[in-house]
């Protein structure tokens, strides 16, 4: 079994990747600017909804309930979708999903496909598998197109090219679309993309999509988007293939009401998405006449097995936690080494891979709680980060110096007398480094602190010693 999350298994540790990225002033400005805009829009439209907290509670209950009965709902979906003329495929991992999709395309003797934004296909690295089989995938989501043409990687769940600014995008388009001239205005750049894509929408026979929601009762699939490219991909081709993680399921159409209020406001600060597409199997004479859905596990059932962190699978990929995160704000998404960046990526990526890779991600957070505060399905990300840190420590994947320091500190803190001795020891140990009540340079693990900030020196008298003296003099 080969569970894969993009190229996360080969990614450098977060602190290392982050160090390079925060030196990129253009990228930091782009990320700060974009997240500020989305965050402000989100705050404005969320503020309009009086029962926002109740909606969050409802979403959480629906998701938790569905995940507890996932086997039931998935089979119900399979039955209903099949009845409506769809073909349901089950993929245990990335390779199996890619193989199923490649075979469907090959069975139609096609060598190109149009795609509407699907993170899940980035997770399985579908494009790479397709290209290897001689099939050309065309990304049609504007941001995905920018990433694809720029031979880049997505850096945000909802806005994958958020790290690029207008001028960079213009340059990529001119180079890759072979344009001699292109205006500088957003309208000019969007028009270039439109001309490039329209021809492909009309020509290509097979479309590939992800999904935002699966509706178990009716066997329907729901995709929400802002650009209309999705509607084209979902309705124009002869054959439609949807690749969807098994956690995207909800019981029925009724529950969509909750999520279609939460998702657009959280994701892009829109009151509702401009395009909401829901389809059920195939409809003769209308839209694709062949519909396949590939239900992907790729580590999800293992995440489900851990009671303390299974709510990770509640995620509806709105990206609000990325926009709220002060760490993401500085580094952008590439530092996470995964197509799932930001706080949700920091808990999802390592769990999907059974904690065997990306062990530095659970530490890529100051635990400030901003992610939990904005999460529309109330995933307690800080709690899960701590839970995963415990797993990392228990697996022994931490530096020995850290382990010794932590054990030593725990021993000293275990008893007030030992603590007083530790105070005295620390005072002696700091003496070569401290002056005027501060320390400007420390060795070893603590050097990172003093590289940027002074450290407060330990004063001669602790509070407990002062208290003892005070009691004596009374």
């Amino acid at each position, binding site marked *: 079994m080969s569970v894969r999350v993009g190229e996360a298994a080969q990614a450098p540790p*977060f*602190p290392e990747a*982050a*160090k390079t990225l*925060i030196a990129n002033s253009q990228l930091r400005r782009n990320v700060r600017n974009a997240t500020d805009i989305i965050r402000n829009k989100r705050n404005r439209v969320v503020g309009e909804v009086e029962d926002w907290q109740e909606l969050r509670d409802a979403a959480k209950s629906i998701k938790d309930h569905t995940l507890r009965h996932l086997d039931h709902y998935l089979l119900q979906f399979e039955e209903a979708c099949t009845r409506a003329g769809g073909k349901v495929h089950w993929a245990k991992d990335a390779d199996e999903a890619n193989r199923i999709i490649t075979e469907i395309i090959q069975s139609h003797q096609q060598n190109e496909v149009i795609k509407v934004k699907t993170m899940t296909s980035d997770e399985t690295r579908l494009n790479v598998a397709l290209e290897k089989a001689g099939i050309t995938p065309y990304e049609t989501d504007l941001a995905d197109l920018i990433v694809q043409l720029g031979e880049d990687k997505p850096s945000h769940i909802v806005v994958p090219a958020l790290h690029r600014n207008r001028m960079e995008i213009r340059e990529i388009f001119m180079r890759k679309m072979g344009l001699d001239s292109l205006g500088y205005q957003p309208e000019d750049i969007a028009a270039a993309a439109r001309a490039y894509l329209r021809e492909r929408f009309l020509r290509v026979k097979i479309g590939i999509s992800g999904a935002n929601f699966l509706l178990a009762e009716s066997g329907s699939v729901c995709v929400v988007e802002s650009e209309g490219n999705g509607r084209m991909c979902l309705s124009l081709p002869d054959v439609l293939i949807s690749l969807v993680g098994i956690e995207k399921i909800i019981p029925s159409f009724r529950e969509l009401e909750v999520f279609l209020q939460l998702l657009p406001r959280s994701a892009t600060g829109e009151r509702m998405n401009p395009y909401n597409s829901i389809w059920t199997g195939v409809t003769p004479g209308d839209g694709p006449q062949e519909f396949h859905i590939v239900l992907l596990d790729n580590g999800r059932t293992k995440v489900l097995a851990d009671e303390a962190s299974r709510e990770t699978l509640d995620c509806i990929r709105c990206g609000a936690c990325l926009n709220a995160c*002060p*760490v993401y*704000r*500085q*580094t952008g998404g590439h530092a996470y080494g995964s197509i799932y960046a930001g706080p949700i990526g920091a808990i999802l990526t390592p769990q999907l891979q059974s904690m065997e890779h990306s062990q*530095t991600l659970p*530490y*890529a*957070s*100051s*635990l*400030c*709680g*901003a992610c*939990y*505060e904005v999460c529309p399905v109330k995933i307690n990300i800080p709690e899960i980060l*701590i839970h*995963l*840190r*415990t*797993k*990392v*420590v*228990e697996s022994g994947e931490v530096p020995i110096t850290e382990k010794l320091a*932590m*054990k030593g*500190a*725990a021993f000293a*803190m*275990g*008893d*007030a007398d030992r*603590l007083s001795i530790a*105070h005295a020891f620390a005072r002696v140990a700091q003496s070569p480094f401290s002056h005027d009540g*501060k320390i*400007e340079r420390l060795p070893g*693990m*603590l050097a*990172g*602190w003093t*590289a*940027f*900030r*002074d*450290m*407060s020196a*330990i*004063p001669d*008298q*602790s*509070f*407990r010693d*002062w*208290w*003892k003296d005070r009691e004596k003099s009374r």
Partner: protein
Amino acid sequence: MLISLFITCYNDALFPETGKAVVKVLERLGHQVEFRSAQTCCGQMHYNTGYRQESFPLLRQFLKVFADAEVICCPSSSCVSMMRDHYPKMAEEMGDPEVIEQVNRILPRVYEFSELLVDKLGVTDVGAFYPHTVTMHSSCHGLRSLHLGNKPTELLKKVQGITLIDLPQSEQCCGFGGTFAIKNSDVSAAMLSEKVQCVLETKAEICTGADNSCLMHIGGALSRQRTGVRPVHLAEILASTEKDGRQQ
């Protein structure tokens, strides 16, 4: 009222002035303060870094020391949030019914310093005098876990002589995060740099807060950059009186 002070490990060792200030304010308000010397640490550093087994004995130690205390005051919003958010879960995990029972009994009696003053003691004017320009950093734990809201600023507004200036982007983390600042020191420093810019924008001479851990972090950069802006814990501002000023 007899108030038991949980000073917390880092205030004990690094910031004794904060502890003295808490004692001064509470005694000035006519309360009696006790300090139980067997106390050590809430266990946050270990728990949050993933050393769960090491944090359990520290929870037991806390319960042993404060089991019969009526009111416990802790001048650190992050340590109080550690207790409120995690002690029940830790107790459950330890599987000891006595620990679970003790945690449930003790938590409602634990107050962060500004909570104690505003909620429990019902005072906002503590008779302080502090003729300085001050901006207030709301720690993430105070903001999102304890929901301190404007309790600290209500207290500050009643201080004579003070000029209080709002900190821009006050809901943004300073980048401390305990061992985060060590393990991800570059990112932490980038976050800190933005925070320091905001502090300097206010042109305040003092940056205050309910948490010396954030203040140590912000203060470390203020000091390194020779900004002349000083971090001072909320309790120390509230402890200051006109008499102190004349003695200085």
